[in-house]
C-alpha cells in the first residue's frame, strides 16, 4: 500500500473543477457584449457575435483549463476570434462585390448611453484594432498580461499599442471638439 500511495503522490494533481457554464455565462455576458460593441462599433452585430461566442464556449467548455487563464479572458479570446471571422467574410464579400471601404460610412447606433458625442465620434474614427485594446484595458480593466493573451501578442507590444491608441483617441477627441 505504501508503494501505491507513493505512486499516487507523484501523479499529476487533478485540475480545479470548472464552474457550471450557466453561472459563467450570466457573470460575463455583459463584459463580452461590451467588448464586442466597442470592437465592432455595431451593437446589432455585437449581439449576434456574443450569442455565437457563448454557443462556441458551451461546446468547448470541457477544454477550458482554469490554470491557464481566467474565464473572462478565455471568453474574450473566443469573441475576438468570432469577430475576426466576421471581418474576413465581410472583406471577401466586399471584394467580390467590388465595394471599397472608402464609401461613406453609415451612421450606426451609438456605442453606449452616457458617452459624449466627441468620444463617440473619436471611437468610431479609430480602427478596430485600436478600439479593442482600449476596451480590453480600460473598459474591461484587464491587466496587461491578460489583454496580451487575448490579442495574441507580447505584453510589451500590447502596452505600446494601448498607449498609441489612447493618444490617438485623445487627438481625435480634440479634433472633433474643435470641429
Amino acid at each position, binding site marked *: 500500500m505504501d*508503494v*501505491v500511495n507513493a*505512486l*499516487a503522490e507523484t*501523479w499529476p494533481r487533478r485540475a480545479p473543477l470548472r464552474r*457550471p*457554464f*450557466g453561472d*459563467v*455565462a*450570466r457573470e460575463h455576458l*455583459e463584459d463580452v*457584449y*461590451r467588448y464586442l*460593441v*466597442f470592437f*465592432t*462599433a*455595431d451593437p446589432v452585430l455585437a449581439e449576434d457575435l*456574443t*450569442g455565437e461566442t*457563448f454557443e462556441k464556449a*458551451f461546446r468547448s467548455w470541457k477544454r477550458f483549463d482554469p490554470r491557464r487563464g481566467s474565464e473572462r479572458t478565455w471568453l474574450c479570446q473566443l469573441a475576438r476570434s468570432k469577430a*475576426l471571422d466576421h*471581418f474576413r467574410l*465581410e*472583406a471577401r464579400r466586399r471584394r467580390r462585390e467590388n465595394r471599397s*471601404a*472608402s464609401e461613406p*460610412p*453609415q*451612421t*450606426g447606433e451609438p*456605442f*453606449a*448611453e*452616457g*458617452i459624449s458625442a466627441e*468620444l463617440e465620434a473619436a471611437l*468610431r474614427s*479609430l*480602427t*478596430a*484594432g485600436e478600439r*479593442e485594446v*482600449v*476596451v480590453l484595458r*480600460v*473598459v474591461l*480593466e484587464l491587466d*496587461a498580461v491578460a489583454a496580451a493573451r487575448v490579442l495574441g501578442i507580447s505584453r510589451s507590444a500590447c*502596452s505600446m499599442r494601448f*498607449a*498609441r491608441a*489612447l*493618444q490617438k*483617441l*485623445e*487627438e481625435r477627441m*480634440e479634433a472633433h471638439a474643435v470641429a
Partner: protein
Amino acid sequence: MPSPELVASSRLEALLAGAFPETQAEARLQGLARELRGAPVPAPSSLRERVAGIGAAAQPRVRRPSRRLVAVLALTILVLFACTFAALRLTAKSRTASENLGLAPVPRHTERDVPPAIEKDLSQIESSPVPLSRPATLAPAPSGRAQDIDMWIDLRVQDADQVSSASQDAVRITRELGGVVTSSTVDTHGTQGRAQLTLRIPVGNLDDAVFRLAQLGTVTAQRTNTQDLQAPLDHVSQRIAELRSKIRIELARLASGQLDPAEELEARIHLENLRRNLREAKAARDVIVSKTSMADLTLRLSTPAPGAPEKSESGVSGAVDRAGDFLRGAGAVAVFLTLVLSPLLVLAAIAWALLRARNRRIEARLLDEPQPGTSARSS
C-alpha cells in the same frame, strides 16, 4: 493645439489604477477612462434569453478516476505485463532447446535434389507430433526403402577440454550403437579447439545417435541429405535373379549331354560370362546395401571465437544482456528516426512560423481596415 504626448506605459498603468494625475494630459486620460468605464452597455433582453438557453443545457460532469485507483491499475498492468513477458520468454527458450535437439523441423540444406518420395517422407516426419521423450530427427523413419543418409552436426562447446572430452564421448556413443568412426581430427590450442569426427551409424540407431550427440554441446547447425536408392537396388536385384536363371539354364543344357563339342564349348563360355556378370551385380548390390544400412554422420566441435563474450541465457545476467540488446536496438531506432524526421520537423516549424506570420499580417490588415459604421482613417 499640439498633439498629446505619449504617456509612458508604467504611468498609464498607475493612472488606470487610480493614481493622482500630475499633468493636464494625465488628467484628461483619466477622465477619458472614467467616461468609458462609466458608460453602461447593457445586453439586450433577447441576447440574455439566448445565452440563458445555452447555459441551461445540462453539462455532464467529467468524472475522473482517483489517483489511487489509477496507481493500483498501473501497478497491476505492469505486473501482468512482466509475467506475460517472462512466460513468453520461457516458452521461446523451451522451443529453441527443442529445435536444437531436432524436435522441430529446421530448414533443410540439400546438396542434391531430393526425390519426391523422400520429400514426402520428410514432410510427414516434420508435421507429425513428436513426444518430447522420443525426439524425432531429420533422418527419415525406417520406411523399408533403401536410403543413403548423410548428416552434419555442428556443436559449440565451452573450451578445449570440452572439445577433447566431447570427442571421446562421441566415439564411445558411436561404438555403443554399433557404429564405427571412420576418421577423427582433434585440434586444441590453449582454450580454443576444434574437432571433426566422421561416424558411420546403423540407420536403425541414427535417432539415438543424434539425440545423444546433441547433448554433448550446443547445436549451432544441422544438415541432412537423403538419397533414395531403392530403385537401383531393385534393378540390380532383378538383374541378379535374371543372371541366376540364365546360369541354371546353361547348367541344365550342359548336363543334358545332347550338345556337340562346339555347342558345349560355346555354352561353357556363355556360362562363364554369366557368372562374371553375376559377381559384378552382387558387388554392386553390396555397395548399395552398405550405403543404405549405415548413415554417414559428420560431427564438428568448436569453441567460441576469442574475445566474443559468452552470453548467459538465464538469470539476472541473462536478463541484463537481453535488456542491453533491447536498449541498443531501441537506441538505433531512435537515432534513425531523429535523422530522418529532424529535417521534416525543421521544415514543418518553418512552415508553421510563416503561416503564423501570414495570419498575423492578415489580421492586422483586417483590424486596420475601416469597418462599415466607422470612419476610421489609418494613421
